[in-house]
């Protein structure tokens, strides 16, 4: 019967075996190239996302943030900026604890709750459709990728090139609000601040006001009941300070409480624990000494503003 069958089954079986081998070899070739392919593809689609973002930026953002992202004074701050990209720059000043990328994404998506009284009267609008803006989520992601792609060029900027456009709420003294200061090393920044404080010693009253001690502590006897929600009342500090901790003088105790607030917490305030721990950095040694003496002075003058 097989005589009738014109082509040899052996030839067919050989074709089958040969094809299986070819198929397996080609699949193995794909297998060994999968990792580099996936890497190249990942970069490819990140690149395309940046391309999409570039068009969106040119169409929607360049009018305020400048065609090169260098910002326009009075309109919108620079993004292609050393200050914007460095860790001690924008995200530190706004108190953002996440990554800059998240900050950019959120700001584009939901806008910025900007102070209208700042030097940037125009408020960043919302862009994501979820928050009432005109864009889709993927467009916001593309736009973020484009803005973040300035990182390399921004971080290579010299102080002259950096547009440096911060908001008003920067904590640093005005003379340090520039890229030159941001470019210093940590030690150099500390030395520069120390030198600045030595030049600008504030009185204890000024410190009490500018560091907002009054927000939690109180200096007046008749407000004992009212104050003390967040921090102990200091009207009678001179009377109790030296007996608080055994083996410490009143001066030592108050000094220690300013520079490391968690060292001795008055019992009823254990739950609160909000005293900032950075006064050792923000105040010079002389200022702290003067503040301690002023707090322990039974005859100190209390300013009227309270």
């Amino acid at each position, binding site marked *: 019967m097989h005589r009738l069958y*014109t082509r040899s089954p052996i030839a067919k079986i050989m074709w089958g075996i040969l*094809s299986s081998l070819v198929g397996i070899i*080609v699949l193995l070739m794909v297998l060994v190239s999968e990792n*580099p392919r*996936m890497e190249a*593809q990942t970069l490819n689609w*990140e690149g395309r996302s940046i391309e999409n973002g570039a068009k969106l930026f040119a169409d929607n953002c360049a009018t305020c943030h400048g065609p090169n992202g260098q910002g326009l004074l009075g309109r919108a701050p620079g993004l292609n900026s050393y200050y914007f990209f460095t860790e001690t720059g924008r995200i530190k000043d706004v108190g953002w604890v996440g990554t800059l990328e998240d900050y950019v994404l959120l700001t584009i998506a939901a806008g910025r709750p900007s102070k209208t009284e700042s030097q940037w009267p125009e408020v960043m609008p919302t862009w994501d459709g979820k928050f009432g803006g005109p864009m889709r989520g993927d467009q916001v992601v593309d736009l973020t990728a484009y803005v973040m*792609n300035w990182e390399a060029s921004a971080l290579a900027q010299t102080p002259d090139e950096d547009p440096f456009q911060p908001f008003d709420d920067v904590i640093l003294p005005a003379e340090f609000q520039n890229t030159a200061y941001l470019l210093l090393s940590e030690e150099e920044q500390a030395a520069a601040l120390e030198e600045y404080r030595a030049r600008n010693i504030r009185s204890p009253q000024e410190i009490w006001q500018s560091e907002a001690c009054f927000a939690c502590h109180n200096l007046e006897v008749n407000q004992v009941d009212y104050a003390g929600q967040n921090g102990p009342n200091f009207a009678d500090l001179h009377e109790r300070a030296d007996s608080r901790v055994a083996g410490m003088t009143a001066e030592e105790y108050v000094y220690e409480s300013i520079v490391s607030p968690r060292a001795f917490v008055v019992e009823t305030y254990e739950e609160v624990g909000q005293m900032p721990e950075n006064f050792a950095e923000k105040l010079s040694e002389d200022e702290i000494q003067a503040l301690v003496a002023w707090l322990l002075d039974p005859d100190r003058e209390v300013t009227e503003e309270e």
Partner: protein
Amino acid sequence: MGLQENIREKGVLGAAAAQADDVFTRLTAGIDAGEFRRMLQGEPPGRPNPRLKPHSEGFLLHIKPTYYHESVTRFTHTYRLGLLSTYLFIVETITGILLMIWYAPSPERAYTDMILLLTNIPFGQFLRDMHRLGAEAMVAIVTLHMVRCYLTGSYKPPRQFTWFTGVLLLVMTLFLSFSGYLLPWDQLAFWAVTIGTSMAEAVPPAVVGETVNLLARGAPDIGANGLLRFYLLHVLFLPLLLILFFFVHYYKVVHFGISLPADEEEVGEDTANRVPADKRVYYLPDVLVDETSFMTVMTALLIVLTVFFFQAPLEHIANPQSTPLHTVAPWYFYWLQGLLKIADKFIAGVLLPGVLLVLLMAIPYLDYNPSRRGKDRKVAIVAGIVAGVVMIIWSWMGTPEYAVEGAPSVEIVQDVMPEEGSGISREIGYKHLPLGVWRTDEVYDVHDHEFEELLHEFNIAVDYYRRADPDFNAPIGILTITQDQPGLKKLNWEITWFDAEGTAGEYKKTFWLHEDSLYWEQYGWKHLFLGYVADGWNSLSGALVGE
């Protein structure tokens, strides 16, 4: 016989051999080891033929005939096109189910899932490319199968209904392929399907058309609901419907037998089921070996084509606000798009395709000529060829080549840097685009061969439209390439011209290109055969030589 008794009688080895043979016979649904060996050695079966048993006892073979006529087993009679269609449907089912693992049918996720599949899933791109290639091949093979049956007159009595179900299967294959088109949720998908469903709107009366359109899209425009509906059509409804009609179709094929070559039987006779004993080719083992080896060869072919030659496109994410220039339907609907250019939506989109479909299904009932022989069917064969040529012409009219010229300036930029896809600018890539201003009215001494070619193409395009359009005089093309960001170049295309009255015109278009972008077939092994080795793609060769 109990095991103990068996051992006592045959000894341990003998009993084990008998047991093994028993298991073998059960697995093959009736072929014992000795018969299997005789099959391999090419010896004829005993009588009664034990090789018929798997057909009556096993489920898988019960739908296959036990023997074929020798004439229909020749490759050149059927080209195995029906088997190949079924095989491709199985390939589509397997790759499709695997792809479903990484896909969610929602506009928020679909496109991102595609990118995730391409960037993070080993063999992800392979699966997608194979699924797409298999789908397009299935449309082609099913069509060829129909052409073959037409040319051999196989639709004639008693196989009219087989032909009818075959036409239904073709329609389902087209719809299956088309419904999968939307799922990647890119511009290509979105606009092809928007145009496709808008044809349904032309069905009269208006209330019916609107309702059909609304049911398909799930809303006046395609959105989350439309995507979900197309997804369900694609993965559930249409495959199930196709499987149902496949079995009807295949039952008819087996029931009437495959029609013999026309000159082997008298005109008006059908002897496919009266196979003389000496013309019988049994399924086991000959046809099984033939079909298995054929499908193995096809699998290898499909793998090779997928890995080296084919790439499923993925354009920008779907944007309902912007229609890309030169939106096209899938190639198997080019003919429909061509018709839509010359007639209105109702005639071209509903009436003509409807009439064509009914005609196609009715061919066996209209063709009263009893002969299946070519020399008796001159009218039918000429008509078939004419229909094929007309389809090809309509299809050509469906491409952007025909009657969709935009303004010359727009077309020039589209030629060298299209909105979607690559174009020569993206093919040569970031590294071959030097910064500077490049004008078509000046000659540059560039040492970069790739860039030289781009400037040449740019010149040719400007020159072509200058000669073709009297309203496009003294045109100058200016390409300005600037560094926009680290690793990102900005390509500003500017065309200036004067119209017939001497009024100056100007057109500007800006694109960006990132150095890591791979716009052409620069993925995986495809660059080996498709020509262009991108600079950004040295990582593969690097990895292979152990860098």
